[in-house]
């Protein structure tokens, strides 16, 4: 059995062949398509079994066809009304947010946004926010708290942008401020990590009452490539790094850092975005119903308890 990463390359190659064959006519081509399709199915089944390794998940989380935040907003909400700007410096394309309706109820949705084509990628800065992005996110959350709207965040970023302007305008302060102030907001907050959870840049909008994570999303303190270059001084060990960093949804559930895993189709979210969004909707409906059912004080008490217990893995003597 080939390794999962190799399987993926094989599957891609086979899919390319099938596409080429579909352009041809005749029963021979048809037979060949069926045969290849069977192989693809077989390979995908093994590639999607429990042994799917950490690096495969990193690749799936970064898959170019994977739905991005605005795609999910389209599928999960109606009447999305985007709001712009942090009122201090500018409008960051890497963070989107605004009012929307979830099953008819008004909510506030905020998330990272990546771009598909080159122009969009530049506009979205590859999903890496500057300080104004985090300040916009918090401004919208505060607005939500003022008008008693639940907050849903959609998390998908390689990380906060490491640039000169970002440092000058206080990237660290912007993230730190969110980490301290978001817990005080008196409305339900449900973050969903659906793609890349890139360190502090992801965490800055991932604080909440119930944290959800898609099956193939990853959430890590450092990218496997950077980890590899620090520890091994090259990028060749990125697969090892992905494994030892424990960045998969199962790992995080085990550490009680996330509360629930949202299932994806066997080949990954990109294979069937509608089905992924449907699974997300089910989980979100349940979480919001549970959080709305308890009093605000009780919700805040539980939120603080949850935050206080985060990653308390220590030894005492």
């Amino acid at each position, binding site marked *: 059995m080939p390794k999962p990463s190799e399987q993926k390359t094989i599957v891609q190659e086979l899919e390319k062949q099938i596409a080429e064959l579909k352009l041809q006519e005749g029963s021979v081509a048809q037979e060949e398509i069926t045969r290849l399709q069977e192989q693809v199915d077989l390979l995908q089944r093994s590639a999607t079994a429990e042994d799917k390794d950490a690096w495969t998940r990193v690749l799936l989380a970064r898959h170019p066809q994977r739905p991005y935040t605005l795609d999910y907003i389209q599928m999960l909400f109606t009447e999305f009304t985007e709001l712009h700007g942090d009122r201090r410096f500018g409008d960051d394309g890497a963070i989107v947010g605004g009012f929307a309706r979830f099953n008819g109820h008004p909510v506030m949705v905020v998330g990272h946004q990546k771009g598909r084509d080159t122009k969009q990628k530049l506009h979205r800065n590859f999903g890496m926010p500057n300080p104004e992005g985090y300040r916009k996110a918090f401004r919208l959350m505060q607005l939500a708290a003022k008008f008693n709207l639940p907050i849903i965040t959609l998390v998908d970023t390689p990380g906060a942008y490491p640039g000169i302007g970002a440092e000058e305008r206080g990237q660290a302060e912007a993230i730190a401020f969110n980490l301290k102030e978001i817990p*005080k907001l008196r409305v339900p907050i449900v973050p969903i990590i659906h793609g890349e959870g890139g360190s502090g840049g992801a965490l800055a909008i991932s604080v909440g009452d119930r944290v959800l994570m898609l099956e193939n999303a990853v959430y890590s303190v450092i990218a496997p490539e950077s980890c590899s270059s620090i520890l091994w001084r090259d990028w060749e060990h990125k697969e090892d790094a992905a494994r*030892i960093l424990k960045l998969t949804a199962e790992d995080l559930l085990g550490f009680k850092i996330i509360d629930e895993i949202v299932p994806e189709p066997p080949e990954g979210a990109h294979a069937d975005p509608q089905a992924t969004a449907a699974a997300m909707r089910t989980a979100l409906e349940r979480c919001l119903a549970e959080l709305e059912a308890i009093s605000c004080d009780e919700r805040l008490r539980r939120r603080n308890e949850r*935050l206080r217990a985060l990653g308390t893995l*220590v030894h005492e003597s």
Partner: protein
Amino acid sequence: MAWFRKEKKPLESPTAEKRAQTEGLWIKCESCKRILWKKDLEQNLLCCPKCNFHFKMTSEARLAMLFDDGKYTEHDAGMSSPDPLKFVDRKSYRDRLTAAQIVTGAKDAVRVGEGKIDGKSLIACAMEFRFIGGSMGAVVGEKITRAIDRCIEKELPLVVVSCSGGARMMEGIISLMQLSKISAALARFDEVRKPYISVMTNPTTGGTTASFAMLGDLNIAEPGALIGFAGPRVIEQTIRQKLPEGFQTAEFLLQHGMLDAIVPRVDLKTYLSKTLDFMGAWNASKPRK
């Protein structure tokens, strides 16, 4: 028979004991490169007497210089990391921990003390750079959170002296969660209205800056300290250009509005004492609600 013979014993190679007499007496300043007599340096709170370069301080020396008569009660000194990820790269995290524990004599990268500054009770945390770059894992996160919890319970002011490269990679996502845990605890600390002063020293970067270091009622720094979110090398690699002179120094941050003041080490204790007074740290009467 040999024509020449050694009549005398060969010169003795210097023993460890003899070498100790000269070793470590002198130290080169990292900034002005002058050779300094170590005793002079120590008497000057580890600041170069010639160019005022601030050398790194151990957590022990830091707490000793802050508290009256160098006296304080240490909290949670026995807390250590159980290596939650079972992290092994070229070396195991366990071995790295053991090595750091031997070098520093501490269990992890922060020391928490309760004591007095000019008679005012408070809790101070000092990070230990020699312990895996002062990086923040679960132990650092939990010790600082407990310090905040104690400050809430006893209504005491808090001082944290940062000296850290950021989150500890060998505890992966667990270390990232410490940012959230500590910051949320500081949010609760706001309610008791006692001061929190963050002192940033060289260096303070990454997850440390992106959490408690930037969240003080006052954010102050020692002169020349490197302070930032991303490390200079990461930024250079991303933008593919050289960084401007003085980028990410304490002076740069002051200019960009991120700091209340730059305080030389020699004035630090006086500055803390004075500002704590302004913020009513030791006042018996409660501030207005």
